[in-house]
């Protein structure tokens, strides 16, 4: 049995994983990163649009600060987020982006003077301030009050990931590539690492660590059409679930992005609409202002996706052999802008659709995009139930996104969570020792070995590729943008059957070393369990909140549902997870629940909401001299590592 010991084991080499690794390495702990692929190929590289941070340097970001970013984030989450975490996040995001700037990201910069932009379908000239020249610029994104999304032309994720990985290489952090974590090793409620399969040789290796961090990204590939990379299969989240100890949070919260191309589901960034692009129907008519007169195309993602679906249901979609779609029109932005700031979009249109978006409309449809749910952690990033297990990035439900995340807040989360959680991981490494016996390690390795040898010896059984396809179709058809009781019940029943069938997978290619069919066979049963967590959670949640939209329960119901879904899978033989709930405490909210300002407000209010609103007003009235920092301290005191406590400077207002 091969065993590798380290202090800090990080599963996942995307932005979040690498940033945690950098933090623990810089604090002097032995650190290893595991990844399915070379780190620079992680899905983070695909983020084109940008990263939110309230720098307020560009003129359209004037007046922006942590408080405005906080309000946008909480509203965006439909009050489903953890407001402490959202606070930690918005206060740290400006530092994160500035650090990345020092590490090499060539953020697009403000150029002083006039420039033409498209706002609400019209050309407008804006004038950037002289004193902002050369500072980091920002573009408009959905659901934000200010232009806050910082970017590098059209390759934000790419440049962020390259800078991050380069920093990791500088620090000598080893990244063990083509390694897949397939089970966590734990004992008495403490996690000690993972059983890892070498994807080339097939060897199983036990990685034993003081702290284990899962940063494996989202679970978009539970759906048949997704903007996510093909490796975004949620295996890291699944192995946490399979411990039966760690909990997953809000698994039913799945975001659909309004503009992925039809049929393949490749994303065209929100930057297209942020920069002025429009959505048109089959008559070439701009329909969004009819539904959302204020924010139009730039309403929050969940809202735009639903409005598009509604409009298509009215028969206004463009018919095609792949079903109905709508048009994204960026022709009005002009060639120069598209070739510089939306070049990746142009390439995608040329290569995959054979069209030129400078002259032609792009066929788009809402498509699975982001996983708000994931491994439940507390504000330090640690699992509340499995000590020593941390999680960060899209894999985690740290919970700054609640039921809908804002565009640009995700890559920002990866880095900010990486910084903050990374410090707590290092603290944990400093305060704990590895106290696990070899026999326990052996037990976990043998269990996985046995599962694999069963797969390799069974001569007759289910085809893993088929099972996966069926699962993806169920999720797409019955657990999609709009949900309802009967469909969800059916999905749950069908997934139960799939879960049974997944116990009887047999392979055609029966070798233990590099073998794509075996990889699939190991993953698919885990994915089906994850899918069931999503479907069952969606069935039980009888309200609509953010991206979870129930046709049979259209109202947001704070009275009964202002709570986070917690899912565990304790009994390996069961076909359903156990679901419990954790209340969000209205009396601690800096921003008590209100209306997001889309459509009709039919919220069923929580009994504490009015009480807390009044309390907030009183606190404000009683402290007339308090500045915004003192006020935040009074309303929402947060705990954050000492090094991130400083105030952030902005032009024109210093540290105010």
């Amino acid at each position: 049995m091969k065993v590798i010991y380290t202090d800090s084991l990080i599963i996942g080499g995307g932005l979040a994983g690498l940033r945690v690794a950098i933090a623990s390495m810089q604090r002097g702990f032995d650190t290893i990163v595991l990844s399915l692929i070379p780190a620079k190929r992680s899905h983070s590289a695909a983020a084109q649009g940008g990263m939110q941070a309230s720098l307020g340097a560009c003129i359209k970001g004037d007046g922006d600060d942590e408080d405005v970013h906080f309000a946008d984030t909480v509203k965006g989450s439909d009050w489903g987020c953890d407001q402490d975490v959202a606070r930690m996040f918005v206060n740290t995001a400006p530092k994160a982006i500035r650090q990345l700037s020092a590490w090499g990201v060539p953020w697009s910069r403000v150029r002083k003077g006039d420039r033409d932009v498209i706002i609400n379908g019209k050309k407008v000239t804006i004038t950037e301030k002289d004193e902002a020249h050369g500072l980091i610029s920002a573009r408009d994104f959905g659901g934000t009050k200010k232009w806050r999304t910082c970017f590098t032309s059209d390759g934000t994720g790419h440049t962020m990931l390259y800078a991050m990985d380069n920093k990791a290489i500088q620090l000598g952090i080893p990244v063990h590539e083509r390694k897949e974590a397939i089970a966590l090793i734990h004992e008495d409620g403490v996690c000690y690492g993972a059983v890892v399969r070498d994807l080339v040789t097939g060897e199983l290796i036990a990685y034993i660590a003081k702290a284990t961090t899962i940063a494996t990204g989202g679970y978009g590939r539970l759906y048949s059409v997704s903007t996510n990379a093909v490796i975004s299969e949620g295996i890291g989240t699944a192995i946490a679930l399979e411990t039966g100890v760690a909990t997953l949070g809000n698994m039913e919260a799945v975001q659909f992005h309004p503009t992925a191309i039809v049929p393949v589901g490749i994303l065209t960034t929100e930057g297209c609409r942020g920069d002025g692009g429009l959505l048109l129907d089959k008559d070439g008519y701009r329909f969004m202002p009819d539904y959302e007169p204020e924010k139009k195309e730039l309403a929050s993602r969940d809202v735009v996706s639903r409005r598009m679906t509604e409009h298509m249901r009215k028969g206004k979609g463009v018919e095609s052999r792949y079903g109905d779609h709508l048009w994204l029109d960026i022709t009005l932005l002009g060639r120069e802008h598209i070739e510089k700031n939306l070049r990746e979009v142009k390439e995608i249109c040329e290569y995959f659709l054979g069209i030129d978006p400078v002259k032609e409309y792009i066929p788009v449809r809402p498509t699975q995009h982001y996983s708000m749910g994931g491994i439940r952690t507390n504000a330090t990033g640690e699992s509340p139930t499995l000590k020593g297990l941390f999680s960060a990035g899209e894999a985690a439900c740290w919970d700054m996104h609640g039921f809908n995340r804002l565009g640009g807040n995700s890559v920002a989360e990866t880095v900010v969570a990486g910084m903050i959680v990374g410090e707590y991981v290092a603290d944990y490494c400093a305060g704990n020792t590895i106290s696990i016996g070899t026999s326990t390690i052996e037990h976990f390795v043998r269990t996985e070995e046995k599962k694999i040898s069963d797969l390799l010896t069974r001569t007759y059984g289910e085809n893993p590729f088929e099972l996966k396809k069926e699962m993806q179709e169920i999720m797409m058809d019955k657990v999609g943008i709009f949900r309802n009781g009967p469909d969800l019940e059916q999905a749950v029943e069908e997934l139960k059957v799939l879960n049974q069938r997944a116990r009887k997978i047999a392979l055609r290619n029966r070798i233990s070393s590099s073998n794509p069919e075996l990889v699939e066979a190991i993953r698919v049963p885990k994915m089906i369990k994850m899918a069931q967590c999503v479907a069952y959670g969606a069935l039980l949640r009888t309200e609509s909140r953010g991206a979870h939209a129930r046709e049979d329960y259209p109202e947001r119901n704070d009275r009964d549902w202002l709570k986070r879904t917690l899912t565990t899978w304790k009994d390996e033989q069961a076909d359903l997870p156990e679901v419990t709930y954790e209340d969000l405490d209205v009396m601690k909210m800096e921003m008590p629940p209100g209306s997001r300002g889309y459509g009709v407000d039919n919220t069923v209010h929580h009994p504490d909401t009015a009480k807390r609103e009044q309390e907030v007003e009183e606190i404000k009235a009683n402290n007339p001299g308090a500045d915004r920092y003192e006020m935040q301290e009074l309303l929402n005191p947060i705990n954050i590592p000492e090094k991130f406590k400083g105030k952030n400077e902005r032009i024109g207002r210093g540290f105010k």
Partner: protein
Amino acid sequence: MSEQERILKFQIFRYNPQRKGDKPRMVTYEVTEAPGMTIFIALNDIREKQDPSLQFDFVCRAGICGSCAMVVNGRPDLACRTLTSKFEDGEIKLLPLPGFELIGDLSVNTGNFFRAMSERIESWIHDQYADEVNYDQLEERMDPDVADEIYELERCVECGACISACATKRMRDDFLGAAGFMRLARFAIDPRDKRSDEEFYDVIGDDDGVFGCMTLLGCEDYCPKDLPHQTQIAYLRKKMAMVR
């Protein structure tokens, strides 16, 4: 897009070094073409329906991550964004990218190569004060054009096409290769990197570096991100010649 169904003929290099006694060979597979089919879609179809042992690498399947470079009818290219309709006779021959360690079939190990490249040219900002920066304060300003220029050179996705297409690299194992020059040029124009020309010279000022290049420019022809290799190699040479 033609409505008529075509049968595509894929000739694919097969060899699994992990399997004792396995020998390199070409195997032919037939696939019914679908509208908008890419090599990514076709290869998955073959794996799912015909041969589940077939190895290849895709991650983003959108031409962004650089995982899927392979030799398509003699040309290194990103397979995920190559439409099958492009090939008139419907015959597509696929080989793994040469110049890299073979993992199996169409999958090669680019990861260790590019990590070594990054270590060799120290692909990070060199500034002894970088870790003392106070991130609460305004970031250091940068000319907007300079930022754009750096980004232009940073668009390399480490796909390896330029390395596999390089005649010099084939003769000289330690030759840095075009992706390395591009990365170095990116840091050379970055005002945040405080390395002097002499320090850059130490990295690329010999025949394994920029003076070894025979200017055959396979790199420029095949780079899927259309990076300006010729211009950058010339720029680095001029810069290095001045140091000499």
